[in-house]
C-alpha cells in the first residue's frame, strides 16, 4: 500500500479533519489538529487495511530562527511540530516490505502565545506503550505538554532542570548546583 492510498483512506474517514497532506515529501505525511490526534491514531492502528501498530518515534521539531537578521529568509513561521513515525507489523507486497506512515501535529510555540506555558497535545500512551518514554523525552527536551500522560516527568535531564534545550531560543544555564555552565 502506498502512502497516497493511506492518505486516501484517512481523508475518506475524516474528511476536512485531515488538515493538510504532503505526498511530494520524501516521507509523505499528513497533519491533524491536536484534538483529533488520538482518534486518527486509533484509526491508523486498528483499521484492518492499515494496522500501523508500531510507533517508531515521536520527535519534537522547533521551527524558529533565533537570529533576527536571518528571520526574513528563514522560510517558515515560528511554530512547533510533533512528528509521529508509524509502521506496521505486517509487511506487505512481494518481496515483503515495511509499511510506514508519518503523522504531524502543528502547534504554536507557546500556549496562547504566552512564553513559558507549554502547548498541549493529547497523549497516545493508551495506544502504544512506546509513547510513554518518547512523550516524556519530547516534554523534557522540546517542551510539549502531553495531556493524559500517566507520568509526565523529565526523563533525560535532572528533575529540577530549567528550560527545554531543544527549543531554538533556549539559553544555556550559567550554573547548575554550583557547577559552572560556561
Amino acid at each position: 500500500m502506498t502512502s497516497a492510498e493511506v492518505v486516501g483512506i484517512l481523508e475518506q474517514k475524516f474528511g476536512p479533519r485531515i488538515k493538510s497532506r504532503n505526498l511530494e515529501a520524501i516521507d509523505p505525511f499528513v497533519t491533524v489538529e491536536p484534538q483529533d490526534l488520538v482518534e486518527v491514531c486509533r484509526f491508523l492502528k486498528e483499521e484492518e487495511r492499515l494496522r500501523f501498530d508500531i510507533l517508531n518515534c515521536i520527535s519534537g521539531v522547533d521551527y524558529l530562527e533565533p537570529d533576527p537578521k536571518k528571520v526574513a529568509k528563514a522560510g517558515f513561521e515560528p511554530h512547533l511540530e510533533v512528528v509521529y513515525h508509524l509502521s506496521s507489523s505486517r509487511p506487505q507486497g512481494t518481496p515483503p516490505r515495511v509499511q510506514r506512515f508519518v503523522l504531524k501535529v502543528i502547534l504554536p510555540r507557546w500556549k496562547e502565545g504566552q512564553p513559558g506555558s507549554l502547548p498541549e497535545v493529547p497523549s497516545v500512551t493508551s495506544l502504544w506503550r512506546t509513547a510513554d518514554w518518547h512523550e516524556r523525552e519530547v516534554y523534557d527536551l522540546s517542551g510539549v505538554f502531553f495531556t493524559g500522560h500517566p507520568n509526565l516527568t523529565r526523563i533525560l535531564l535532572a528533575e529540577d532542570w530549567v528550560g527545554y534545550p531543544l527549543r531554538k531560543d533556549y539559553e544555556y544555564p550559567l550554573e547548575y548546583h554550583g557547577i559552572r555552565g560556561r
Partner: protein
Amino acid sequence: MATAEQLSGQRPAQDQTIVEFDVRTDEMLVNMGPQHPSTHGVLRLVLRTDGEVISEVSPHLGYLHRCAEKIGENVTPIQFIPYTDRMDYLAAMNMNLGYSLAVEKLCGMKVPEKAQVIRVIIAELNRIASHLVGMGAYGLDLGTFSPFLYAFREREMILDLFEDVCGARLTYSYITIGGVHDDLPEGWVQRCQEFLDYLKPRVEEYHTLLTRNHIFVKRTAAIGILPRDLALSHGCTGPMLRGSLDRSQGDPEWDLRRLEPYCGYDQYDFRVIVPPFPEAPAEAVLGDCWHRFYVRMLELVESIKLVEQGLHRYPSAQGSHRIEQPRVLPAGEAYVETECPRGQMGFYVVGRPGKDAVPLRVRARSSSFCNLSVTDDLCRGCLIADVPAIVGSIDIVMGEIDR
C-alpha cells in the same frame, strides 16, 4: 518447548521463582546502579521489592546525556558523524551508517556499489564485535568470567582490522556521508578472511561455554518472558523482538535488512533468525532471556556469512568508495531506520527551508531506549537476582539511550 499458556506470557505454575513467605515482609526500595557492574554503564534502577520479589522497577536514565541532538542542529552532517560514534559505542560503525543513510536520503544521493559493499562488510563485522561483547558481558552478569575473555580475544582481532581501515579502535567515523572515508587497505581482504576462518569454529565453543551450560540455562530459561504483542507495543526491535516472534505462527522475518533493504542487502544470502529453535532446552519458553541470547548467537553466524559474501564481491565492485556530498542540505525531512545490533536505530534529519549546511533538527531514535522501557513489565514478580539476567538479555548500551 513451551506450552500455549506459557507462550501467553504467564509464568509457569511450577516456577521456582514464586517464593512463598511465611513471614510478613516490608516493602523496600532498593537502588541498583548507577555504578552497579551489571547495569551496563550508568543505568540506575529503583526496585520496589517485597523481600526478594520485585513489584516494580523504575529505570532512571540520563546519566550519560550529552545533548547529541542539540549538537546535531549546530554542526554540519559530516561534523556530526563523530558524535554518532559515541551513541552506541559498541557498534559505532552501524551508527555512522544510520546517520549517513538519513542524510543521503535527504540529499537524494546514490552511493556507488563499491562503497556499499565496504559498508556491508564493515557493518557486519561490527555486528559480530557487538554481539561478542553482548555474549561475554551477559556471561559476566550471570557470574561466569571466562566467556568474556574469549569474546574479547576475538573482538580484539576485529578492532585490529578496523584500526587498519580507519586508525581508530572504538570511535571510527569511518562510514561517512557519500560512502566510506577510505578504501580498504592492501591485503585487508585476505586478513579479514583469515580472521573469519579463525572465528567460525570458535562459535561452537561459545555454545558449549554458555548456550548449553546447565547453570546458564537455569538462569535464563523461562526468565523475563516478553510476549510478542507487548514487544510490539513497546517498540522493541532487533534480537529483543525476534526472540519473541514465532515462525510457526506466521510472524514475519522482522529484520530491516530483509524488509527494508539498504546498501544492497537484498542481494545477499542470509537467514533472519526467528524462533522456534528445535535445539532449545526443554525449559526455555519463547520470548525468554535464553531465546534473546540465542538469537544473537545465531545472528553472529549469519553476519560471518554476510562478511564473506561482501569480501567476495569487493574485488569486482564498481565505482569509487566515496562520492562528494552537496554543500548545502535541501529543504525537507528524511527518516531512516537501520538494523543495528541492538535493534532498529532511526535517524530523522530535517533540512532548513532556506537551504543551509546545518540541519534544522537531528533526532536519533534509539533502539535500546525502547527496548529498556519494557524492563518494568519483564521484572515484575521475579527475584532480585533475575534483574541482571533480564537487563543483560536486553543488551543495552547507555550511550545510545541517553545520547
